[in-house]
């Protein structure tokens, strides 16, 4: 009789461990480990060499190891106003774009959620469809639309509203247009998922108790959609904070954003340690809203039992 091949008992792992372990392994390999590299580089000194930094753990002579940490990069970020300004610039663009996305996206998500059944799928497809084209191509397309002899200026001049082309491309306005356009779906989709789940009888109950439609929205729908608003806003705010392509292509020389600055430090200035310090700071800054949201989610989850 053949015995079934199996792991020795000591090596057998319950399936649960695999299920939880797989994403953790992924996270460790592709996020935590690279981040530790970045952290390590941020504590070293820049040199003109290949790679362009000095490892802070090095063997000096016969077994002697020298550890030389360099916090100067972080100090530099603090002292040179350029970096704080860039951080502030990114924050401003991210915050304002998130707000604009909310103002445009909430009505969109709500309209789709309220639409008749057979309309919902086509409308959602329209939101998702742009993803089928490369992000980069879509941003380039906006350059074509916004430039001096682009679509917008031609139409406006054709209608006789302006005689000189408006300078839109390479201004903050262009950055906002590009960011809002690109990130809107990330806000609409989670918000739609929240709104579609809301219980319609709650609105009927509110109406029954004398609440008019507009107030029904404010007192019932809006408070109940907060989880969706938060999730969607995070999905816009966090990547826009580090956004590089849009400010680089659509923004002007005065568009100061941290992603662009990082690129400059890495590739133009070859100052890897400084760029790494910048990246580390950005990560820490971005973890704050994320932790706050997790906290809130936990609270609402408790609330809804």
């Amino acid at each position: 009789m053949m015995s079934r091949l199996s792991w020795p008992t000591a090596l057998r792992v319950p399936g649960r461990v695999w299920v939880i372990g797989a994403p953790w392994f992924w996270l460790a390999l592709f996020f935590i480990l690279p981040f530790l590299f970045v952290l390590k580089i941020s504590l070293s000194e820049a040199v003109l060499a290949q790679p362009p930094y000095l490892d802070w753990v090095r063997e000096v002579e016969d077994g002697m190891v020298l550890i030389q940490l360099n916090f100067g990069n972080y100090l530099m970020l603090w002292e040179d106003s350029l970096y704080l300004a860039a951080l502030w610039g990114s924050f401003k663009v991210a915050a304002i774009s998130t707000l604009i996305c909310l103002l445009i996206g909430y009505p969109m998500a709500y309209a789709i959620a309220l639409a008749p059944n057979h309309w919902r799928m086509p409308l959602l497809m329209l939101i998702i469809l742009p993803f089928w084209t490369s992000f980069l191509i879509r941003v380039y397309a906006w350059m074509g639309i916004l430039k001096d002899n682009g679509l917008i200026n031609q139409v406006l001049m054709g209608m006789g509203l302006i005689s000189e082309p408006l300078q839109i491309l390479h201004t903050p306005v262009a950055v906002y247009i590009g960011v809002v356009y690109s990130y809107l779906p990330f806000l609409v989709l989670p918000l739609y998922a929240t709104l579609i789940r809301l219980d319609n009888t709650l609105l009927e109950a509110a109406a029954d108790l004398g609440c008019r439609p507009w107030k029904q929205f404010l007192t019932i729908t809006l408070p109940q959609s907060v989880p969706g608003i938060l999730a969607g806003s995070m999905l816009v705010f966090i990547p826009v904070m580090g956004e590089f392509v849009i400010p680089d292509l659509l923004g002007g020389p005065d568009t100061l954003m941290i992603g662009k600055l990082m690129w400059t430090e890495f590739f133009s200035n070859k100052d890897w340690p400084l760029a790494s310090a910048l990246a580390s700071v950005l990560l820490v800054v971005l973890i704050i809203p994320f932790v706050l949201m997790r906290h809130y989610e936990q609270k609402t989850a408790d609330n809804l039992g």
Partner: protein
Amino acid sequence: MPQHRPAPNDNPWAASDEEPIVRVENVTKTFGNTYAVDDISLNIHRGEFFSLLGASGCGKTTLLRMLGGFETPTSGRIFIDGQDVTHVPPYERPINMMFQSYALFPHMTVAQNIAFGLKQDRMPSLHIRERVSEMMALVQIEKLANRKPHQLSGGQRQRVALARALAKHPKILLLDEPLGALDKKLREQTQFELVNIQERLGITFIVVTHDQEEAMTMSSRIALMHEGRIEQVDTPRRMYEFPISRYAAGFIGSVNLFHGHVVEHNNDMVLIRSDEAGADLLVHHSQPLLSGMEITVAVRPEKIIVREQRNDEPNHLHGVIQEIAYLGDVSIYHIELASGKRVQFTQSNVQALAEQPLTWGQEVALSWNPYSCGVLSQ
């Protein structure tokens, strides 16, 4: 079945010349090609505990939702307290509703839920607080004021929903399957509580239910609905004793039906010949009936009495006991007649161990009083 009101022989609302608080005039509601509600007219009077009873899909909920303003009739009109409200939105109707799912606002506490309607009326906050604690006392949930709905049991939620719907002192309270989500014990207890609250506040209650026992227990009148139409509107007692159709007779309680034709009709007594019953049947009936007319006689199982001897007078049947179901308080017997027709009758188990209990295969003679049965023409 418990009766909380003195049971009147006649419908006390039939003679009322007061303007009914709800007047439904020829209301029809269609969804696509289906008639959810088909040309219903109905008067409900002030202070009634009125039930819309029927199987699922009979249109009772649609009718209730039209009263609440959540659906607009395809045709016909609805008057509340003399005012045409057919096209008035829910938030402008002097009506409140308790929803089947309770529809409590999950992001608000119990007190905030109850205060919601009052806030819409811009009532001063001092009065709101007073009214809210008054309502919480009424349904005995004072201690739950600061809980959120998810922290409540099903029975507690039901009470919050009731308090919220009553807080504005509406002229009419609509209740959609108010006890549907409660377990049996709690449901029976709550039935009486609902009736007490209704009597104390004097608000007209209109209840949708599929549970005939619930409707019988609580209502002053019942409208039995079937396929979008009203089959019969009557007091629980008249509904049970004098159903007007086979559907009504069968929906509430059990019934034995015998088909036959009218032989003669005089002095308010109808003699009916029924091959199914294997005997002539005598029924008290005051409306004139033509000889030869096809008709059905309805006899409730508890109205049938067991006789010792065979007898060939009218209303005497003979058969063999086929099935016995012992339910504790009563036993149900199934008798097969010579025609093959089965008759059901019940007997209270008065004695713990009767000396000569009826048993399987035994031949029995059954009879009933001509005043304890009815004829159905539809």
